[in-house]
């Protein structure tokens, strides 16, 4: 819709920096003509912590807790993405059991992230009930994370070369229980939303985008797949042995919020399939190391440090001087819940990276916000913001 009135008649509305629908601190300045948005200016940086600058002054291992705080809805996946990048730089691979556990926790985190995204999107639009059903499942996921990593939100579960520890025996029964209950909850959610006329009114056609335009904007993840591009790094460029798991890539047609919702819903089901395969595989593999036994990269076990001279030296060297890194640069990407999460590492051989850059998936997606809402009503801005799943922590870094 073309603006008709003089620009002086426009009303300026601030959405954020602390507005219930922004879920994090971001600021959008909307210029309105009546109810129609003529201009939307996102104003980001409120959560900028200078992660990349800090990373240049920390060792590779010390950066892991900072990755938790990127996308705090699925911190485990950021841990995995970062350690995979450092392992690519080192040219090493973690043990098989650790790979399965990484896939397992990534998929649980993906389910959690999608549940939050759909639940919050529904709440913003006014469907409060679905959110309550979904958050019951998310609670179980966080209980599982607590068993794994000892922390619910800021997990810091991975280490360079493997994992911080193995899962406890209580993990499996609870995970089995989760695999039982989660599909039912997703069905319940679908019965509340998928054929709900209000939900369809608020999401169908809103935020529609063509595949070419989505690629041009740098879309990745569910938002790109909803537009009809079957790009998923787990299939296209498999890492952590994803090629050996059976799962499908759901694809939408119009790229609107409704399609993004359907894609995310189906991805939850597919991730549940992967979790099932992971549990079976863990049983097959049996107990084993979850971190590589190269003490120049991973810390030796504490018993050895206390009893053996060599291990004590390794421990001291690793803590004081860090890992001996090769000189070079790598870009490593993993499929996070929102899309391609990339880490660009430049090493000059020192204990801390010369440059570390995070490519957050929601950053390019959110940059298209103005194009997505221009000419539409304010209520659509709320649906679009929810459908993009903007996480301010990874947007601002």
């Amino acid at each position, binding site marked *: 819709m073309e603006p008709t009135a003089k620009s002086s008649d426009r009303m300026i509305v601030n959405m954020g920096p602390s507005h219930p629908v922004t879920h994090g601190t971001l600021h959008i300045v909307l210029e309105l003509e009546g109810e129609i948005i003529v201009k939307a200016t996102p104003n*980001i*940086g409120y959560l*900028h912590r*200078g992660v*990349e*600058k*800090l990373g240049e*002054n920390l060792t590779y291992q010390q950066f892991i807790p900072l990755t938790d705080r990127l996308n705090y809805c699925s911190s485990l996946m950021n841990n995995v993405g970062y350690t995979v990048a450092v392992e*690519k*730089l080192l*040219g090493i691979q973690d043990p098989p059991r650790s790979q399965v556990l990484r896939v397992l926790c990534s998929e649980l985190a993906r389910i959690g992230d999608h549940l939050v995204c759909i639940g919050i999107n529904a709440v913003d639009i006014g469907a409060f009930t679905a959110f309550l059903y979904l958050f019951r499942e998310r609670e179980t996921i966080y209980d599982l994370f607590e068993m794994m990593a000892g922390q619910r939100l800021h997990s810091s579960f991975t280490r360079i070369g493997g994992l911080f520890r193995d899962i406890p025996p209580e993990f499996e029964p609870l995970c089995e229980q989760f695999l039982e209950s989660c599909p039912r909850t997703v069905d319940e959610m679908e019965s509340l939303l998928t054929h709900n006329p209000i939900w369809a009114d608020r999401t169908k056609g809103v935020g529609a985008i063509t595949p070419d*335009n989505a*690629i*041009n*904007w*740098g879309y*990745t993840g569910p938002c790109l797949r909803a537009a009809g*591009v079957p*790009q998923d790094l787990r299939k*296209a*460029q498999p890492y952590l042995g994803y090629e050996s798991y059976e799962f499908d890539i759901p694809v939408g047609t119009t790229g609107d919020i409704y399609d993004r919702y359907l894609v995310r819903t189906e991805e939850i089901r597919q991730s549940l399939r992967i979790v099932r395969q992971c549990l079976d595989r863990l049983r097959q593999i049996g107990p084993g190391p979850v971190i590589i036994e190269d003490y120049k990269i991973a810390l030796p076990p504490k018993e050895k440090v206390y009893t053996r001279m060599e291990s004590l030296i390794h421990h001291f060297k690793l803590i004081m001087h860090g890992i001996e890194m090769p000189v*070079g*640069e*790598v*870009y490593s*990407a993993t499929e996070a819940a929102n899309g*391609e999460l*990339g880490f*660009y590492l*430049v090493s000059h051989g020192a204990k801390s990276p*010369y*440059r570390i*850059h995070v*490519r957050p998936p929601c*950053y*390019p997606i959110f*940059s*298209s916000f103005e*194009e997505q809402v221009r000419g539409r009503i304010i209520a659509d801005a709320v649906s679009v913001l929810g459908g993009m799943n903007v996480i301010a922590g990874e947007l*601002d*870094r």
Partner: protein
Amino acid sequence: MVIERIEAQLPGAILEHHAFRGDETIIVAGTRFLDVVDLIFGEGYQLLLDVTAVDLEAPDYRFEVVYHWLNLASQARLRIKVPVAEGAAQPSLVSRFKSADWAEREVFDLFGIPFEGHPNLTRLLMWEDFPGHPLRKDFPLDGGDLFCSQDIGASFAPEARSLNA
């Protein structure tokens, strides 16, 4: 593959290329950059994932602007690096890639590298009158204690004003 085709069609455009851990990297001279981008766009590298920079503190070319492309058809990745001297401008890609918009603003904000032809080159993550560019290597980690002392950090201020003007 794509490197050979670039070399055949634009001889001399590639200053150097290498592959480390399977990452193809080419270093392109700033003057030939847009020609190379046109060529690789036609080759299918249409998803510009990321634009960033590295402050090398080198005497002649201080910065390297780093681009990451993905070819969705072949799933090949390509990294292009362009050496940029301090104060020199880098041609903007916004007219071809919309994803370059915010990415270039971020590089301008954090490194102070201007992008020629960018429609709205303003700060993005830092606030408008922030002094200096935090990801430059000579910017202190603690930000020069801007809020505790009035004169520390001021050395960065004139430069920031000239770039924001």
